[in-house]
């Protein structure tokens, strides 16, 4: 066997091994479900929500999935999804989809109307369903809310929920008047949500209040 044949055989064997053994079948796509609180006075924060949506659109890559839904009286419904898209794997098509997505969410957020109640839990369940259906490798729920759940008398949400392998990030959790009087209310509220989310099997719980630090959303993803 000559040296050249040996080198060629080694190269072919290496390439075959690389092709056969090293193919990564895991999904590298990301899926993000963003809940936008539209209840009461928080509806005034819609402008900031648009900033978050735009940031996410600029950060997500071709092949990723993104959905924006509102939190209202009862949020466990597909009707509450304002816009959703699974971006094309081709960058040019994905960019076009992102432009359409931005227009759609922008139109909604400019005309958002406040609702009487806030069903964050319903939104979380709906978001988990959406994310699991995408089959993405990394799943994230972003809650743009003050995290003050306010249900009507007939809505039932006091049961355990499942958020397995989903990161939950609360963004722009504003302080209510009552929180200003007694900050323990605010801290207790966040702690209660953290416990609930962790109990639901979420992989991470994070709070980002500074809109200028949105890069923390994907910091550990």
């Amino acid at each position: 066997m000559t040296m050249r044949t040996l080198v060629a055989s080694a190269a072919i064997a290496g390439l075959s091994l690389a092709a056969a053994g090293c193919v990564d079948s895991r999904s590298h796509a990301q899926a993000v479900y963003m809940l936008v609180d539209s209840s009461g006075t928080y509806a005034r924060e819609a402008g900031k929500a648009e900033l978050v949506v735009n940031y996410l659109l600029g950060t997500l890559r071709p092949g990723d999935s993104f959905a924006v839904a509102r939190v209202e009286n009862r949020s466990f419904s597909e009707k509450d999804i304002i816009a959703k898209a699974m971006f094309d794997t081709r960058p040019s098509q994905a960019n076009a989809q992102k432009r359409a997505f931005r227009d759609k969410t922008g139109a909604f957020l400019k005309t958002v109307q406040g609702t009487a109640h806030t069903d964050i839990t319903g939104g979380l369940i709906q978001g988990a369903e959406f994310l699991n259906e995408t089959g993405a490798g990394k799943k994230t729920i972003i809650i743009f809310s003050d995290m003050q759940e306010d249900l009507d008398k007939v809505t039932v949400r006091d049961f355990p929920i499942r958020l397995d392998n989903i990161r939950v990030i609360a963004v722009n959790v504003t302080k209510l008047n009552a929180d200003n009087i007694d900050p323990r209310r605010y801290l207790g509220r966040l702690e209660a949500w953290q416990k609930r989310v962790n109990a639901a099997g979420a992989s991470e719980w994070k709070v980002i209040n500074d809109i200028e630090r949105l890069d923390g959303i994907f910091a550990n993803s």
Partner: protein
Amino acid sequence: MMDLRMWMIWPDNAALSILVLSLIAMVVLYAARAPMHGLMRSASHALGGPLRLGARWLFGVAGEMKARNKAVLLAQGRRESGQRIEREFERLGLLVTRDLQGYPTLQRKLLEEITRVEEDYKKCGEVPPPPPDWVDAVAAVAKIKTGGGEVVQKILVDIRQSLESIHDKALAEYRRAYQMRHSILEGFMPYWRSLDKTMKQVDKNMSDMHDTAAAVDAQMATYKEIAARSDEAESTLTNSAFTQFAIAGLVMAVALGGAFVNFKLIALPMSEMVGASDYITASLRTSEVAALVIILVEASMGLFVMESLRITHLFPRIANLNDRMRRRMVWISLGLLLTLAGIESALALMRDMLIADKQALLQSLAAAPAPVSEGWLGRIPTAGQMLLGFILPFALAFVAVPLESFIHSGRTVGGALLVNLVSALAFALRIFGSIARQAGRVLVHAYDVLIVLPLLVEQLVHSVRSGGPAPEARPVDATEKTLRPY
């Protein structure tokens, strides 16, 4: 402490206990001296023997490898030297054919010119006619004394006048003859120049042939040295291989830089073709692998072009193809290379468009004002990228040449390094083997130091019994020789 006390014969008197215990130990050790010495020597030989054996085997392997490397190197050198001699002979043949083809004409021309020059020379050699015989008569008349006679004087004047007119005629004739010779000589000039030029040409041809013959001689000398398998030839070839390896490696590194730039140009736009979300490994996208494959295919096409042109000789089958097939192969490879270069150029344009689109999207998302158009200045990078995308595949095609040198010299360099490695390993094993053997001897002596008192007693007993001076302690080497395995 309790454990130590257990060993004490007199727990209250540690010194005495230790002394007695030491004496008992000495006696026991003295009794076990011979088997212990044997054990130590056997252990050292058991350890040192295989190490030395391994070292010897490795030295043998290194020698075999060196011989094989030498054989391969000399065969390679002989082949290359033979090819060079062949090329020199081809060149010499061409030179001889070209020059000898013209030699009959040149010779005829030279002969004609020489004949003409000879004829002209002969013409030049013709002397003017000598003065007539009556010159002597005139001289005799001139001697006649006039004596003052008028008749005689008149006759002399007439003779003088006649002579002067004849002299003028003869002088004119003489001058005319010389003028003719000068004109003939003047006519020589072009022939002399032509002769000179022809002779210079002949001289140059001879000089070229001499140089080529000298080059052939030098190559033949090298070939003879290689054929004689001399160490000098091996050393020269090895040094040459190392130099070639370094140069080829350097050029390959530069080519790798070019390939990297090429990769960067087409990796992003390839995601438009194969998608941006497929991964081969955790961090390696399919689009990146596709871009890499395109670059490798381009390099392969370049390699085939070089092989078909017989610039490189990595594939003997291509080199052995007939000329028609080779020409076809050149055109096919070149066509594919051209197509790939065109695709790359298009991909480079697409890359620019994708980046611009992404920038526009990000600006619109950030609600920033759209950038001012840069006009034709903004198109320069795009054109540069397209040009680069088109040129780089052709530039990469030339990697085949250093690649061949790299592979060929790599065999020699790798072989030499491997021989050195094996030799170093053998040397290390040999050292460890020697250390193990010497350690056995040191242990034997150390053992005797521990039982020095019984050995002194033994010497005393021997001296008393023999009545002479006490012999040295029993030699330890006596048994060592019997135990030594080799």
